[in-house]
């Protein structure tokens, strides 16, 4: 053995490298994409409840004319926080959570490209969300709308437009969250492009991964734009700059352009993951491949590109002039095409299939129906004269709830039921699931369908009450009733999740007879290293092709040994050294050990780390420093960030 002279060892840091990958404390230092995903989803579901409570308060206020549940100022806070929460703290984190769990498994990788950065992205959501919500007790919650139009939000505090710290918490909080979103997006792009298993070409990749790739690109290019817009708002408000100060020649419309340049891609960021989820569930529950895979993929890419060209349709009544308005009207109509194409492909998938109408399938079918309705009202918006009447009324509220709730949320709910067995080795309660679906569907339509009518009859958005005798009463009451039905449904869903984790029916291996690689792992939940052996991919729907082939008449024939690493029932991992690659170092194997090689393969997993969460803790400190203009706090936060960053950079990714 040669004497190895090594570089002088780095000074032992104060904290020894955490080793544990199990136990409560391991969650704070984990870099495992699956655990991070669960944290994303859990946090997002908590914010779903918070955002939902805000919605219920709004609905209570609007249940009857001249409501007295909320003051005008409180109402402004409620609809601002409802929107901000649902978009930034529920929708995006849930989508990223799904992506985090599934992308590595679906492409045959062991983790994402940058595991510690992955953890950091999650902690940003938690700390950013807490930061935003702390505003309620620290000087006023954001109250300028989730879109924060200027000059209302940018008007300096001294001029009294929006007293309190609300807009400052909003701008700083969103910039903070944007940092996390951007890092996650970069992580996903590199993972998907660089870490696919051998044989997994891009056109063999599951559609969900494709959609997440497009989403990641949208995120990475849209976030900087809103960061600039938000910074300008903060500067105007706190440094008396003039970006949106009309008296100095500034143009508040610039803000709207910058915001919607971000905001429109943002809504595609929200919906594409739902489309991806549905594209996974429908084929499995119809026992048919996705109809027109390439077309669905290219439509997703087309939406990603075209989505950049439609933003001013949010500004049709701001006086853009006929040329601009016509151009954006046209581009908005155009984007309906790839969207519609996908709908037809999903229908084509289900048509003639051997359908199982279980809860995931119900939600997916519900997605198609609800999203189509939302898409139709969207196409109506693209017609400028019509939109001139519809904009700023409840018609718009109906439209975007149909596409976002009826779209993304239905897709997410379906996805939760679908992938639950993968995470926990158990099914969610199917009966309760079906009840949840019907309650959601009924409650959702009862809440939002009337809003189409209310909007066309003239009920304005963002107004805290309406007068008697406007003809709005009955439908508003119906909407309020519907919102509580939704609340019950969400409650049932959460109960189902919590109870089924321990008491759900045990799921067999590959319970849905699925098509993609995440189901091929040796145990549910998957082992830390995901796959015993990195899969060799030979086809699209790789798992399906391992299980089945077709005989001369086109009927499915089950292959003898297809599909799994080690078909074991339930959640117990049985690991055996694989003789085929030489046995590794043979002998006993430690499952779920901290970063040790497993299965005798010497699989090297990235090690846990303190620094993602530690470094991230600097962000809210900086945030408070900026909001309260306390430069000591700000400096402290920057110090934490810098120290955390150095420690992170100098720490090897695995030890």
């Amino acid at each position, binding site marked *: 053995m040669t004497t190895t002279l090594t570089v002088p060892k780095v000074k032992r840091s104060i904290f020894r490298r955490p080793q544990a990958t199990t136990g409560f404390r391991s969650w704070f230092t984990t870099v495992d994409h699956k655990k991070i995903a669960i944290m994303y989803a859990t946090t997002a579901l908590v914010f779903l409840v918070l955002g939902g409570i805000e919605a219920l308060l709004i609905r209570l206020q609007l249940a009857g004319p001249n409501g007295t549940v909320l003051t005008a100022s409180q109402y402004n806070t409620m609809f601002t926080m409802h929107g901000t929460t649902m978009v930034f703290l529920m929708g995006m984190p849930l989508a990223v959570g799904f992506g985090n769990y599934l992308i590595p498994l679906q492409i045959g990788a062991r983790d994402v490209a940058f595991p510690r950065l992955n953890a950091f992205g999650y902690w940003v959501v938690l700390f950013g969300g807490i930061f935003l919500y702390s505003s309620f007790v620290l000087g006023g919650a954001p109250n300028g709308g989730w879109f924060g139009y200027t000059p209302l939000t940018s008007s300096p505090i001294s001029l009294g437009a929006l007293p309190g710290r609300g807009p400052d918490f909003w701008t700083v909080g969103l910039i903070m969250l944007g940092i996390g979103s951007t890092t996650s997006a970069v992580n996903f792009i590199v993972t998907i492009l*660089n870490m696919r298993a051998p044989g997994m070409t891009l056109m063999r990749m599951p559609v969900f991964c494709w959609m997440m790739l497009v989403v990641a690109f949208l995120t990475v290019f849209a976030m900087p734009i809103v960061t600039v817009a938000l910074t300008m708002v903060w500067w105007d408000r706190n440094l008396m700059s003039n970006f949106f100060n009309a008296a100095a020649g500034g143009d508040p419309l610039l803000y709207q352009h910058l915001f919607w340049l971000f905001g429109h891609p943002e809504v595609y960021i929200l919906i594409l993951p739902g489309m991806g989820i549905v594209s996974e569930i429908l084929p499995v529950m119809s026992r048919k491949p996705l109809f027109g895979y390439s077309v669905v993929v290219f439509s997703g890419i087309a939406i990603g590109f075209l989505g950049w060209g439609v933003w001013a349709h949010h500004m049709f009544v701001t006086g853009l002039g006929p040329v601009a308005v016509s151009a954006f009207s046209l581009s908005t109509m155009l984007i309906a095409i790839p969207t519609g194409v996908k709908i037809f492909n999903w229908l084509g998938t289900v048509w003639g299939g051997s359908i199982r109408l279980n809860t995931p399938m119900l939600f997916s079918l519900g997605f198609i129906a609800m999203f189509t309705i939302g898409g139709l009202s969207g196409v109506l918006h693209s017609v400028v004269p019509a939109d001139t009447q519809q904009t700023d009324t409840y018609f718009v509220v109906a439209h975007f709830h149909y596409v976002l709730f009826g779209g993304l949320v239905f897709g997410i709910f379906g996805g939760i039921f679908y992938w639950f067995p993968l995470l926990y080795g158990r099914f969610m309660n199917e009966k309760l699931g079906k009840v949840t679906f019907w309650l959601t569907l009924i409650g959702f339509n009862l809440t939002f369908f009337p809003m189409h009518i209310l909007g066309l009859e003239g009920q304005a958005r963002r107004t805290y009450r309406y007068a008697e005798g406007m003809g709005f009463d009955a439908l508003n009451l119906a909407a309020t009733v519907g919102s509580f039905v939704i609340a019950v449904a969400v409650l049932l869903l959460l109960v189902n999740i919590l109870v089924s984790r321990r008491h759900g029916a045990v799921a067999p291996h590959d319970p849905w007879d699925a098509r993609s690689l995440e189901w091929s792992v040796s145990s549910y939940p998957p082992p830390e290293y995901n796959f015993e052996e990195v899969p060799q991919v030979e086809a699209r729907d790789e798992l399906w092709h391992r299980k089945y082939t077709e005989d001369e008449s086109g009927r499915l024939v089950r292959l003898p040994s297809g599909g799994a690493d080690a078909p074991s029932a339930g959640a117990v991992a049985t690991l055996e050294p694989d003789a085929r690659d030489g046995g590794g170092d043979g002998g006993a194997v430690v499952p779920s050990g901290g970063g040790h090689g497993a299965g005798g393969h010497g699989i090297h997993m990235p090690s846990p780390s303190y620094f993602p969460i530690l470094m991230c803790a600097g962000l809210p400190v900086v945030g408070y420093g900026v909001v309260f203009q306390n430069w000591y706090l700000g400096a402290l936060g920057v110090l934490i960030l810098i120290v955390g960053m150095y420690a992170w950079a100098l720490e090897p990714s695995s030890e």
Partner: protein
Amino acid sequence: MEQAAIAPPAGGAHASTPVHAGHGEHETSTGVTNTKLAMWIFLSSECLLFGALIATYLLYRGRSKGIEPADVYNIPFTSATSFILLMSSLTMVLALAAIQRADYRRTKIWLVATALFGMVFIGGQVYEFTEFTRKGVTVDTNLFGSSFYLLTGLHGLHVTVGIVWLLSLWGLTTQGRLQQKDSETIEISGLYWHFVDVVWIVIFTVVYLIPM
């Protein structure tokens, strides 16, 4: 999808080594490393950031009331600092070339030179800002003031981060912890640095030189 490396002429003993994702597991699907791909994606997103700021400046230059760029700009001075920043790109890429051939002495020299040039540039910016303030252009003066300071201020912040990064790399090289096999680390920091220089090329042309 991997491209074969160009075979080096006789005497060289190296084909391009298979590109590892990071843990020595297997090659990356595209043949480029994760970190380099990540940096390019980040730089692409920064195009959108600086684009918004430059667009804002362009929008407001004609509408600003009161004191104008022509009243305060010192083109010879800014040309000098721009020249310094350009030269820092040269020293940066020479640092990369040096570490690629394991010339650690020159690596350190060029790294420090780059950081020094960056510091001179920042010093120039600070001087410029104080001069402008003295002449009556501050963030709140008018549209010109607001958009100028946001754009160049954010750029200066990027340069400062770069300087700290470079000095850290110099420190690591001094301790022997950055070696030829880690050339990519210098390359990544170089990409960032060059990008910041490229942004300044655009700013110098569009903000300082182009007439109203």
